Structures are given as structure tokens and as C-alpha cells.
């Protein structure tokens, strides 16, 4: 598998950790930089910060747009992170794997991005801070043609504007 977004591996690990943090209602306790050597590499409120401390991606099953529990956890972390940086706005990108037709995938990507957006709004994030865009199958993260790559590409990616 080839990951083209450098934040991905870290993001998925940190997102998994953050399920615990979010459930214990202490997301604000996350480091905002400076507490460790690695964390100081990015600015507070940046894309890298989101990836490291909340997770920037949620993943979907084949031809589906319903959020999975892992995705909901990531979005809960994103909502907490957004509460900490009220000036930050996000564009949620909807992505699909290559095993669909281009036009249908544009619509499916829009559905996925909106599923993530709606969930963030339900968690109290101001709708005006959340835009969506769909790339369908035209901006894949993993460039291989196997199930591992396709799973990576069925994604809602939160881009810090």
C-alpha cells in the first residue's frame, strides 16, 4: 500500500487513542505543541495539528456513506478540536475508490462528505464553518488497485482552510 498523505498513519493511530480521550470528556487536555518534540513541528490549529490530535479522515465501506463507529469517534475528536480553535474552518472532501463510475462517484463522495458534516453539526459545530467538496474517484490517496488501497480512498478528508 502506498500512502500519499503523510499525515495518514499518524492520524489513524492518534484517532484511535482519542476515542478514549473523547469519551472521558477531556479532549481539551490534548497538547497544543511544545509538550513533546514531535508536537512542536506544527502550528496550533493547522492541518498537521488536526491530523495529529484529532484525525483528519473517516473511512467508509464499499458503496456506503454511513459513518462507522471509528469514523464517529474521529469526528467527535474533530468537533472537540474545532471547539479549541474557533477561527478554523474546514472543507470536508468526499472521496471514493476507483471501482465505480465517475459521475456516480462524484455524488457518492458528496454524500460521504455530507455525512461527516452533518455529524459534526450534530455535535455542535457551527454549520458555517464546514464546507464540503466531492472529488469522486479523481483524487485518490492510495494509488494501488487492491482492496487495501480502495479502503484508503473511500474517505471523508477534513481539510483546514
Amino acid at each position, binding site marked *: 500500500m*502506498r500512502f*500519499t498523505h503523510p499525515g495518514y498513519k499518524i492520524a489513524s493511530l492518534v484517532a484511535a487513542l482519542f476515542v478514549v480521550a473523547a469519551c472521558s470528556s477531556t479532549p481539551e487536555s490534548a497538547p497544543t505543541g511544545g509538550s513533546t518534540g514531535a508536537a512542536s513541528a506544527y502550528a496550533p490549529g493547522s492541518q498537521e495539528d488536526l491530523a495529529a490530535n484529532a484525525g483528519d479522515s473517516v473511512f467508509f465501506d464499499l458503496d456506503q*456513506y454511513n459513518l462507522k463507529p471509528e469514523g464517529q469517534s474521529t469526528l467527535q475528536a474533530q468537533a472537540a478540536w474545532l471547539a479549541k480553535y474557533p477561527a478554523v474552518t474546514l*472543507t470536508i472532501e468526499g472521496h471514493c475508490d*476507483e*471501482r*465505480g*463510475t*465517475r*459521475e*456516480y462517484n*462524484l*455524488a*457518492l463522495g*458528496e*454524500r460521504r462528505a*455530507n*455525512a461527516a458534516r*452533518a455529524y459534526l453539526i450534530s455535535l455542535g459545530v457551527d454549520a458555517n464553518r464546514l464546507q464540503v*467538496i*466531492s*472529488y469522486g474517484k*479523481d*483524487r*485518490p*490517496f*492510495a*494509488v*494501488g*488497485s487492491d482492496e487495501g488501497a480502495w479502503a484508503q480512498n473511500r474517505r471523508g478528508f477534513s481539510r483546514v482552510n
Partner: protein
Amino acid sequence: MTRKFFSLSREGRRAARALALGLALSLGGALALNGPALAQSSVVVQDGRREAIPIAVPNFAGGDLGRQIAEVISADLERSGLFKPIPAGTFPQSPDQLQAQPAFPSWRGAGADALVAGKVVPQGGKTAFEFRLWELNSEQQMTGTAFTADTANWRRVAHIIADTIYNKLTGDTGYFDTRVVYVSESGPKNRRVKRLAIMDQDGANHRFLTSGKDLVLTPRFSPRDQTITYMSYFNDKPRVYLFNIDTGQQEVLGDFPGMTFAPRFSPDGNRVVMSMARDGNTDIYGIDLRTRKFNRLTTSPAIDTSPSFSPDGSQIVYNSDQGGSQQLYVMSAGGGGGKRISFGDGRYATPVWSPRGDYIAFTKMKGGRFMIGVMKPDGSGERILTESFLDEGPTWAPNGRVIAFFRQSPGASGSVKLYSVDVTGFNERLMPTPLDGSDPAWSPLNP
């Protein structure tokens, strides 16, 4: 509407196009137009497949230009799969000898059923092009034409001659004097540069229409003028645009609050249908290009996309997952409920109505494979024409006999190429492009 389009006489359209070319069209009496109606006599149909007609296309008299014209005509006819040009080495006469009088028995002896004889003569900065088509068994002239054109237009003249030959020998309208607009692709899959590009159907006169700065997708020709509708991510706002090929002018189509995509013109060129996605729901809208008023054609909470008009403009076939999986539906062009027409095993997408009206072409997904197929507008008679890891996006040549599509091979370095295939499923051909290519759209016959 469509009936009118297709019943407009061949010669009438030819004359109209010739005028646009700046041709002084003179159908010379000396050429004794239109011999007996032999047109269909050379066509043998076997199992739905036409036997290729052996034809001799020797160089036209008149030097290099005469040779080039013959090469383009011969290549057009060969690529259609319906003709088999006989090898030049077997030609019994030189172009000049042929101009004097065809030696019919010798040409028959060389294996040809039909013979093309022509010449080019410089005429005050322009060129006079003349050709005759001979049916060799009857030794009858089937057609003959002479016209004068700017020499620079010689490729178009060759395609028009090839269209005439195709029409006379198969009975179908030709499709060689056409272009293909498509998306040229380069770079790695995750940062693909996509540019609109246009070329003649044989790959000549290729040029790029956009710079590659913005992601562009799914161009489609207007059936009536030099306009393309397509989707662009200009300014991070994915919207449907119009592009004027002559002027290069681009404009966003409509002021929609959400992403617009999957555009296609109506047969009269006055409307564009497209999808708009908003808040997770995708419906089909129509926009009148004269008033810019739009109306919503579907209202389901499902994904409704990829609309395509019937050639008479009365119906729209589209793709919807309202039943749970992607299937094809037909509705009135005014909207309202759709009637499902695809019932085979698998998912169906990208329906495109043939300009003839007899078939709907589609992409089918089944068992991890992608196929191009056709079915009748009522959903019966499904036939699969091609299959691979990923075949997608059929588009019809204006005569409704040939389909172009794109084929992607798997993997990080997989290629994406344009292909054509006969509606019978035979004669699959690579359509050469300078770089990779996807989303082809065939033009109508050139104006």
C-alpha cells in the same frame, strides 16, 4: 426533431458543410452522379457482423497531396472495420492511367469489389478535388464529386470523401468528418493533471483546450454548435461550464448552490441537463440556455445522475440508486417518475442514448469487472460489447454505429486510454492520443 435531423438529405447537409468549409462545391455533370442503386449490394451480413468490403484506394493523381488524401481515406475506411483496403502492391494501374479509364477486370483480379479514383489539381491558391467511386462487378460509377477547397482543408475533404464512400457502400451515414473531445491525463494518479483536448476522430489536429491548472471532467459536445459543456473545479467550486471551441470563451452554467456535474445537451442544443448535489442528495436539473431558467426533474432522496436525452428530445435516460443499487431509468424530459429499464445481474451506469434512437449504451459493473454494453430503450436485448478491469463512459459516433469509451488498467502506473468499438461488439480499436485519455465525447458531423 431527430427524425428531421436524420432525414435531412445527405446532399443538403453536404452542401451546407461545404459552404462552411469555404468550398465552391460543384457537382460536375461530367462525373455522372449516382449510378444505379447498388449501395447495399456489396454488404453481406453474417451473424450481425458485416463482412469487410475489399476496396482499392489508390493514390489520387496529383503528387504528394494526392497520396496523402488517399492515405487518410483508406485509413478511415479500414478503421471502421467495414472495409478491407487491398494492398497497394497489387494495384494494376497508376493513378494517371486510372484517370484515363479504369481497367475493371484487372482491379477485380486484384481482389477489390470497389475502386476509388480521384485527382487533385491546384487552382489559384486552392485545390480542386475530384473523386469517383466504382462498383467493380457492374463496372458502374456509384458516385462522383468535384469540389474546390482551400488546400489546407485537405484532411476534411478526405474525411468527407470517406464518409461518402462509407454511405454508398454500407447504406449508413458516415462519421469520419467528426472530432472527439476528451480529457487528456498525465502525472501520478493522486495528482493527475487533466486537460480538455480535442482532435479529429483519426487523432489528427490534436490540441489542448485548457491549461491543466483546474481539474476538468466529462466534456460533451453540443449537437448544434461549437460548444462543449463540461465540469471544472475552477476556484475549488465544482460546477458545470460551457466552452466555446471557436472563441475559447468559458462560462459557468447557472448559479447553483451545490456541486453541478454530469452535463449533457438536449438534441436541439437549447438545453443542458445535469446533476446537482447538495446536502447529500443528488437530483437532475434542466437549464434552458436561452433563458437560463432551470427546473428540477427528479426529487428522490437517491442519487440521480448521468442524464441523456432520447434523440427526439422527449425522454431522458439516467442513472439512479433509488432501488438500492445503481440502475438505469427512463423518464419524460419534463421530469416526473422514472421507469426502471435495467434488470440484469450487476450495476448499471452512464447511460447514453444512441443518436439513432435504437439503443442505449451503458457501463456495467459485475463481478469486479467493468463492461460497455447496449440495450434497447425498453431494456430488452442487452448485449455486452467490451470488458476489462475498468471500461467506462460510452459515447456514440453520430451515425449510431460506433461507440468510443475509455479503458483504465490497474495499478499505480496503470494507463487510461480511449478505445472505439462497433455496436456489434467487433472491431475494438485503440484511439491514439499523445498522453493518456478519458471521458471521450464524439462530436456530431462537422458543420
